[in-house]
């Protein structure tokens, strides 16, 4: 059964885009962490744990939140069968630096568990899994660039084990002030109508993923 892109959410360059439509944006050059906070506020998300997360987890969490949020896609009625397959280039480098700064010398040695736990990139997958009750397969893979062949390849193979009914997959990258997130909600073609979406355009293949990744170049204010 072919897999389809049911919805996607893109957070880059101070804006939030869902299925190709801009749903939120800021004109100013606010720091990444401030922008993410205004996204949280704009979408009226009520999840205090958000403020404890590192930047990478905040970015992944918000993208998934908007992807699975109002209106909730039909695919997620059984969240326990949902998988999460994320990729990025820089792993958790920002929080790694922060943890490293706390252990630079034995005289100033104050490592903190609340930083250290985020020095694993898959903690963002864990945060998304907890929030939405998703108990399926989850993983983080590292690639130099957005790699649609890798994302599609690994996700398809996960579906072939017949343990997933849907999957959130894509790219969540954060390195200093540079952030990029593009996540896809992928499900099997159940024959249900997807409104006015042309079927060709929503087939889950590397070409369609790359088209969406490159769309950022055409964004106008």
């Amino acid at each position, binding site marked *: 059964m072919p897999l389809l892109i049911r919805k996607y959410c893109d957070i880059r360059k101070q804006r939030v885009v869902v299925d190709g439509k801009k749903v939120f944006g800021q004109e100013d050059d606010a720091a990444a962490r401030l922008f993410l906070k205004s996204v949280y506020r704009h979408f009226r998300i009520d999840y205090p744990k958000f403020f404890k997360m590192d930047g990478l987890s905040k970015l992944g969490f918000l993208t998934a939140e908007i992807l699975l949020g109002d209106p909730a896609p039909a695919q997620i009625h059984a969240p326990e069968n949902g998988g999460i397959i994320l990729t990025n280039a820089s792993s958790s480098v920002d929080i790694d630096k922060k943890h490293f700064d706390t252990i630079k010398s034995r005289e100033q040695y104050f*490592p903190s568990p609340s930083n250290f736990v985020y*020095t694993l*990139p898959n903690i963002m997958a864990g945060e998304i899994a907890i929030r939405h009750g998703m*108990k399926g397969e*989850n993983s983080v893979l590292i690639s*130099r660039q957005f790699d649609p062949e890798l994302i599609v390849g690994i996700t398809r*193979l996960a579906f072939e*084990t017949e343990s997933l009914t849907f999957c959130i997959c894509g790219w969540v990258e954060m390195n200093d002030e540079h952030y990029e997130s593009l996540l896809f909600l992928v499900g099997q073609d159940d024959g249900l109508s997807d409104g006015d979406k042309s079927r060709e355009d929503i087939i889950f293949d590397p070409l369609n993923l790359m088209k969406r990744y490159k769309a950022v170049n055409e964004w106008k204010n």
Partner: protein
Amino acid sequence: MKEVFAGAENIISSLGFTCEENICAILEGRPGIAPDVKHEYSPESLPLALVERQRFGELSGGLNRKYTRLEKMFILSVKDSLARCGVDASAPDTLFLITTTKGNIELLDPAQKAAYGKDNIYLHGMAAKITRFFGNPNQAVVVSNACVSGVLGLIYGQRLISSGRYRNIIVSGGDLLSEFIVSGFLSFQSLSPDACRPFDRSRNGLSLGEGCGTIVLSEDPGIFAEGEPVRLAGGAGSNDANHISGPSRTGEGLYLAIRHALRISGMDAKAIDSISAHGTATLYNDEMESKAFCAAGMENIPLNSYKGYIGHTLGAAGVIEAAICLQSMKRNLLFRSLGYHDHGVTGNIQVIRQTQEMPVNTCLKTGSGFGGSNAALIFQKM
């Protein structure tokens, strides 16, 4: 779907640089965990399972200085595996699959970073150097999923061959201990003041280890020089969806991974001869695992944790411990679970007290880690 075979395993750990050296130490019941008396890794003298530095220096002495210590360890490990099978590492139908949690994390130190390329701190940069060393034309797949990385890497390797994308996959997992890692676990207060004791009543936390493990996966059982062919039948992952740093209380997540692994492999619980558990020796992890194995109907299957020998080797653990599983199957030996004396978990699981001979035709390997992630895979003899 093609069958997938596993072999040509290598282990570099605190017990030695080949499978033979590691298994020899395990048969002697000799732990590779010793106090860090020089306080090199933390202000406290913690027990750690470190790779013997002098011998590692001798063995890796011929490698170019542009490789970091971890890259050299990957290269040594893969070289040993390649010498045990007929795989062309430079062929386009061979893939490298690298698993690690922190890679070259010591390069965060500007003094160290200057000696290497700017991409070297990134896991993809490290993986690219390893594949280039072996002349492989493909971009390596890199899995960084906490302590489950190794098991998950083997599962992805199995699927990539089974679906016909590659003929051979070299799965190599590695992590080195550093002040970065030790300080973090110290802040979590999850380290044992003495060598860890998985599933024991007096267990008091984990012991950290370092090392590298390699397993070659292939569609062709004929490429392996040693032992009878073992299939990697299949595996699956899951998430607890419960807590980012604590294991679930119920074991449901791990149970789900085991159930899917059995289904995918076309087996039931009774078909499993032995279990290589994650068994970190923290209070909650071991308790959680015992519940999951009982829920899966596996309370009578001999089980062990190898962490009493080699510590918790993080992103390498899944591959190193799976390599020990392959040795256990080829030798028909169940290895003693070091550090276990008095039963200390709720589930009435059968932790192995003495190394013993027994036909080991199937083996379940599991892992669980931070982020609530679990994974399980099954090896089966032909």
